[in-house]
Every structure is written in structure tokens, then in C-alpha cells.
């Protein structure tokens, strides 16, 4: 019993319980709609794990989510709710696309320049939010949401502009190929490559049908770096102190306003990086007209929430999230279940994550009952 209570008190346990509860409720809904929940679950698992291609697709989908998750988690440590992640992601992709189309350098220069453009744009959007909060006390959620729309229409403006619009298409041109970060992009369309892949089914499945790119490795690296920064550096110390108690931080001589702005700059730049990696790494390597938000940034909020604002956990929750989104498609195509079910599942899981404070409470009760029985 004591052991059970101990396990229940770990944060990971409550998250897992939340996930299971989410699946259970979604299962009930699927059953009520007249489908078999077990079959749906089977399809979901199959849709993620049955072919190497699927696994790599999930990784590809997860990469930006991990990064926006890390971005949000980092801001959250300073007590800031970076709902503007969506906008920072969009401007990042706008900047990366514009620079990627306009400039044409060899890859060794082009790739860093394009990625830096994305980071810078994201950082600027982040700084605006942070500065307004620090200087005038304007709530970051308000400015964040406003800037999301600014970013959305900026994106559409660029897509529709004469300069970048691919004729008779609702998207821009792709960026110059020298900026691609897709792995073995040139080789797989070369003669030798085609020849080789024809004889290697497994590899061709991955390389030809997905956009395997370096983004995932970068995302892991960034998550680790952010963890290091938070826990081992003076910036991280300041960020945590300000986030946990701004009053004490101020009194101890830690610049609260400076830290808010810095945090938002870093948070925004991580979103910009996520966007730039998507533009350079996956097709169509450009922008398309947005009728609504793509939710990459918003989903980052959920990723961070499930991860309990730990950058390292964001890697796993990002993969989980990507898996749900990608695997959800196969439920839809296999069973004819509306894709909304996947969204309901995600929503339910989050709902339970928010409720997980109850779990340690239950653990306490268990411990107490044991005492009484003893």
C-alpha cells in the first residue's frame, strides 16, 4: 500500500493515468457511435507502428510540436503563458520562406541564414510580448493572441503577394533547394540513389515517402540545451526565481522586467526555429494560404502541459501528440470514425492532466487509510 501511494505521487504516474482516462472516455464515445473501440485502438497503434514510414512520419509531425512545447514550457517557468507561440511559429515560417526564396547561397551558408531568419522573426514577436508585459504590464495572453492574428494575415499577405505567389496556386514558391535540410535530398533523386533504393524497399519506404530531416535531432538537442540552461546557468536561475516568486526575486536584486523580456525572446526564437526547420525540412518548403491557424503553436501549449513544463519530457509528449494526430488519420480512413474523435481524445487527456492534482491527494488518503488499519 505504501508503495502504491509512493508511485501515485510521482508526476509521471498522474500523467499516465490522465492518458488512460482520456483513451477510456474516447473509447466510450466511439462505442456510443456504433464503432468498436478496440478496433479503433488497433488502427491507431497500427497507424503509428506498423511501417517504418509511419514511424518516421510521426517523428516528422512531432518535431515542430516538441520545439513549440519546449518554447512554451520555458516561458512557463518565468510564469508567462506564451499563447503567442502560434504567431511566433507563423512569422518564423514567413521569414524563413521569404529569405529562403530571395537568397541563393551554397547550403553551408543558405541553411544557417534561413534558419536564423526564422529564429530572429520568432524572437522579435516574442520580445514585443515580453517588452509590453515588462514595461506596461499588458498581459501576455492578450498581446499574444493579437500577434497571432497579425502573423496569420502577414503570412497570407506574403502568399498572395505577386513577389512570392506561385501562379494559380494558393501557396508560395518553395525556397531554394540549397536551403533544404531533408536528409539525402539530392541523392535520393539522383540516378545512383534511385537505383539503390529500388533494391532496398525498407529504406525507400522511409526516404521517398517521408521528409526525413535533421529537425528531430535539433529538437532533441534544443530540449537538452534548454534543460541545461534552466538548471545549470545563471540565466536559468534568474528565470526560475522570477517565475516562482517575482517579489522575492525583485528584492534580491534580480531584474524581473529584464528576465521577462529575455524569456520571451528565447521562447519566441525557439518557435521561430521550429518553423524554420519545418520550412527547410518538409515539403512544400514554403507557405500556403491559412484560412485558420495550423495549431502548431497552440499544440505546443498542450505538449508543455502534458510534459509538466519539463523540456526533456516535451520530447516524449511531443512524440505522443504527433502520434495521436498522425495515427488518428488511420482510424478515420479505416473505420470511418470522424477525425474529431481524435481531437476529443486529446481534449479529454488534457482535461485529466489538469485534474491530476487529485492523484497525490488520493495517494494521501490511501496512506492514511493504511495508518488507520494498522
Amino acid at each position, binding site marked *: 500500500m505504501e508503495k502504491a501511494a509512493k508511485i501515485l505521487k510521482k508526476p509521471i504516474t498522474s500523467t499516465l493515468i490522465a492518458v488512460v482516462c482520456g483513451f477510456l472516455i474516447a473509447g466510450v464515445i466511439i462505442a456510443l457511435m456504433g464503432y468498436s473501440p478496440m478496433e479503433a485502438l488497433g488502427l491507431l497503434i497500427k497507424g503509428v507502428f506498423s511501417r517504418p514510414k509511419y514511424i518516421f512520419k510521426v517523428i516528422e509531425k512531432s518535431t515542430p510540436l516538441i520545439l513549440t512545447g519546449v518554447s512554451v514550457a520555458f516561458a512557463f517557468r518565468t510564469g508567462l503563458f506564451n499563447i503567442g507561440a502560434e504567431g511566433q511559429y507563423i512569422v518564423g515560417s514567413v521569414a524563413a520562406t521569404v529569405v529562403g526564396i530571395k537568397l541563393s547561397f551554397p547550403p553551408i551558408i543558405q541553411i544557417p541564414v534561413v534558419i536564423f531568419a526564422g529564429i530572429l522573426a520568432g524572437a522579435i514577436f516574442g520580445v514585443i510580448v515580453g517588452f509590453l508585459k515588462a514595461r506596461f504590464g499588458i498581459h501576455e495572453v492578450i498581446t499574444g493572441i493579437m500577434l497571432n492574428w497579425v502573423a496569420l494575415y502577414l503570412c497570407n499577405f506574403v502568399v498572395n503577394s505577386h513577389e512570392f505567389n506561385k501562379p494559380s496556386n494558393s501557396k508560395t514558391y518553395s525556397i531554394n533547394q540549397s536551403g533544404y535540410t531533408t536528409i539525402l535530398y539530392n541523392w535520393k533523386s539522383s540516378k545512383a540513389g534511385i537505383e539503390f533504393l529500388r533494391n532496398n524497399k525498407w529504406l525507400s519506404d522511409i526516404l521517398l515517402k517521408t521528409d526525413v530531416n535533421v529537425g528531430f535531432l535539433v529538437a532533441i538537442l534544443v530540449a537538452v540545451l534548454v534543460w541545461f540552461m534552466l538548471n545549470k546557468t*545563471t540565466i536559468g*536561475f534568474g528565470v526560475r526565481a522570477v517565475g*516562482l*516568486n517575482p*517579489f*522575492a526575486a525583485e*528584492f534580491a536584486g*534580480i531584474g524581473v522586467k529584464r528576465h521577462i523580456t529575455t524569456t520571451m525572446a528565447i521562447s519566441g526564437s525557439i518557435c521561430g526555429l521550429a518553423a524554420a526547420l519545418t520550412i527547410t525540412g518538409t515539403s512544400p518548403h514554403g507557405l500556403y494560404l491559412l484560412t485558420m491557424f495550423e495549431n502548431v503553436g497552440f499544440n505546443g501549449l498542450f505538449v508543455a502541459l502534458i510534459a509538466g513544463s519539463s523540456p526533456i519530457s516535451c520530447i516524449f509528449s511531443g512524440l505522443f501528440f504527433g502520434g495521436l494526430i498522425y495515427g488518428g488519420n488511420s482510424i478515420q480512413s479505416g473505420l470511418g470514425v470522424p477525425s474529431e474523435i481524435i481531437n476529443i481524445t486529446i481534449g479529454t487527456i488534457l482535461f485529466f492532466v489538469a485534474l491530476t492534482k487529485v492523484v497525490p491527494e488520493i495517494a*494521501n488518503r490511501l496512506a492514511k487509510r493504511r495508518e488507520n488499519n494498522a
Partner: protein
Amino acid sequence: MDISSNYAVQMRNITKAFGNCMALNSVSIDVKKGTIHAMLGENGAGKTTLMNILYGLYHADSGDIYIKGEKVNMKNPMVAIQNGIGMVHQHFKLVENFTVAQNIMLGSEVTNKFGILNMRKFKDELQKIINLYGLKVDPNAKIENISVGMQQRVEILKTLYRGAELLILDEPTAVLTPQEIIELISIMHKLIENGKTIIIITHKLKEIKASSEYCTIIRRGKYIDSLEVKGIDEEMLAEKMVGRSVKLIADKTPAKKGKVIFNIENLNVQNQQSNCLLAIKNLSLQVRKGEILGIAGVDGNGQKELVEAITGLLRAQSGTIKINGKEIQNTKPKNVIKNKISTIHEDRQKRGLVLNLSVAENAILEKYNERPFSSHGILHYSEINKFTSDLIKEYDVRPKNCKGVPIRELSGGNQQKIIIGREIANEPDLLIAVQPTRGLDVGAIEYVHKTLIEERDKGKAILLISLELDEIMSLSDTIAVIYNGEIQGVYDQNEVDENTIGLLMAGGSKVGKSSKNS
């Protein structure tokens, strides 16, 4: 003692645990009708918990409550109110921008049959109660505009209006001036004359002697004794409360005052609530090396603003603050710390510590950016841990291996030791201690006082700001009185008595020797 209707309240074998912590262990108390009964104990002894159980805010794990001989299940405060129990909490629960009358009516509104408030009828009823007990307050005044003593009367009126026969007063004198305390005690006696019963929770021995007939002492959740107050002295009460003999007055040698190193001249600071008023008016003050200068005053007379102006949190409108001849007004907190001013803030948990960071991280909160704790932006945890271990050892922080645990888990006294250690490690020229013993038990208070005197003897200047007049009187070498943002007078220790200081604290005229500061 038997259960009998002669007793307003009898609580029997009350036990209550919070998690693993035993807050109350089989405590019993018998309160005779028509008496003032004191609950005496150190902070954290369980006095307030016991009373919260009586008022239905907490539930006892076991034990019974009898009201006038009848067993009652105190499910919630509604049941307590129905049984004629009223409680005045230490922190008042009033709506600041409502009037006195509105606050008293809140929750038991007088209405006509259409549900419209009938203010006139209510005010008539209220006036009757006010006259009966001599609780003078203006029913139409807003809470934010009346003094703390008045607010307390409003709280008492609130319970009386709800028909309370038994009043529980939780630390009622903590926020009052000596004069207000005397008035409160006379109000209490008037209530008793009119057949009410009062339980007063306190750790101040003097007030028990002045007000109560009986006294129940609890120590660390255990029942110690119940006594008739007449015929026992304060030392004996203290000994029973703490469990050993204690020094009620700090031991110290006369100060060797050096040169003035901290100098405030004509300081003006705006009131944060209303922009046109000044919280600090033309204040001048000097602190010398090797002395403890105590500022006495009732809460809310500018102490907070004074500290915040010195530490760089609030802007000074005009005037100068100099340390070692260097002006530091209107600079950042960091600059103030750099200029050798360290502060033990009154609000330990809000301003002093980041509760969710570890003990070690809190120990370097002001210096994490400096060598040896970090270089090139990377923290050096080995140095940080070493520093913290030394601190823990030197200041006898318990538990001993607490470096890595969140400081939230330490007791108030041990948290304070970390703060004091941290600030003294800065080797300040001026140490500001604001309410340094707030919420600490007698043992920890003794320790804090001893440490402050030691620092003084090392030649540091110490500015002590406290609402506890006893603390100011016993520790300070020089006493300044603040009222309404102005210094009313500066005296040497033993030059004036407690009553004179008390009068000045309440804004009364200067008696005896005139201010030395003018």
C-alpha cells in the same frame, strides 16, 4: 471536571493531525460562563487550530465539544453561529470599500418582503448594540478609512449582531497600540458584564495578566495546564508555555556607538493607494555604527514604504538616502545590496524567499551571479552547496541535511535563520531587520535577538523596524517613533517609558524631553 451547563464550552480530548504532524493531541478545555479565558501557547502550539475546531472550520479527528452541557457536532461555522459562537480572526475578514454597516450586515441582510435592503431598520438595531457595549464606531465610515483598532470593533460587532454569546478573539492585540489594547480590554470587561463569555488566544503574557481570569496553556499540541491567572507571575506562565525557563528581556551590554554611516534626509515617498498623499513625510533619520536603532510604530504608518524606499522598490519623491556618504535613493535593489545594505524583510515568504527553490538556491539568491557561485553564466553547484552547508552549520538550521529540499519544507524559524545567515554573509554595513521575529516561537526569537546584538557588537549599524513594542524596547539602543509617515521623536533606550512611546505611536503629543532629531 464534569460536563455541566455552567460552562459555555467544554472541549474533551480533541485530537487533530495534519498529515503526519500532530497538531493537537487530546486537548481539553473548560470555559466557565461569563469569564475571560486565555489560550496561551507559542506560535504553532495549536491554539488557533483548537479554536478553529470549536468554530467548525476544522474537524477534529476525535474528541467531543459540549456547549452549555449539550454535545454539539460542529459541522461548519453555521452550526457554531447558531450555537452562539462568534470568532474574530487575527486577519480581519472585511470588505475594504464597504461601509462599517454594510460589512456587519453582509451575509445576514435585513430586507423587506420584496428582498430590498432595509438599511434604516438595520442601522437602528446596530446602534442599539453599539450603545450597549460602548463599541464606538461610525456605521457610515468606509473600512479603508478607519484604523485597525476600529476595524477590530467592527469584527466584534459582526459577531454580536449574529447573536454571539461566546466570542473567540484570535491574537486580538497583535496589531494594536498600547492605548488601543487598554481600550480593547475595557470593552472585553464590558462584554463580560453583559453576560458574554470570551476566549482570547494570545502569546502575550502581560495581556493575560491584565484581562483574563483563567488560562489554559498548550505546548506543541499537548495540554499542559489550566490555571487561575490571579496569583501567578509572568515568568511562571512563560516557563509553562515554552517548557523551560526563558529570558524575557534580551541580554546586552551598552552600545559603543560609532560614526553615522546611514543617513536619511528629508525623505518624501508617495502613498501607493492614493497618489496625492504622502506615506513618508520629510523624514530624517541617522543610524550609527555599533547601534541598534529601533523604529516603533503601529502597522501602516509608513514603515513599509520606508523600507521599500531604502531598498529601491519604491521611488523617493524627494530627499536623500546615503550609506557611507553615497546616495542610493531611486536606484535598483541590486545597487542597494552592492552598497552594503542587507535587509531581512518582514514578509519572509513573499519577499525573502522563493519557497519552491531549494535551501541552497535560496542561500545564494542575491549572489548567484557572482563568483564563486557562478562564472561565465554557469552555476557552480559544488561551491553553492559548500556555502550552504557552512550556513546551515553556523546558524544551526534543522534538519541538517536540508540543502537540496525546497525551503518551503523548513519551519518558519529555520527559514528565518537561512535569511539572516544569507544577509549577514553579505557583510553589510547596515543591516535592516523588519519584524525579524514575526511568527517565530520563543526559542527562535531568543536566537534572532542574540544574533542581532552580536552583529551590533561587531560594529554593524542595525535598523530594526518592529510592530512589537516590547522587542523595540528591549533591543534598541536608540528608539525612533514613527506616526503617519513622520518621525515623532528619537530617544535613547531607557530615556522614556513604554507609555510615552505608546502615546507617540498613536499620534499623541510629545511628553517629556523633546525630540533630539529636530
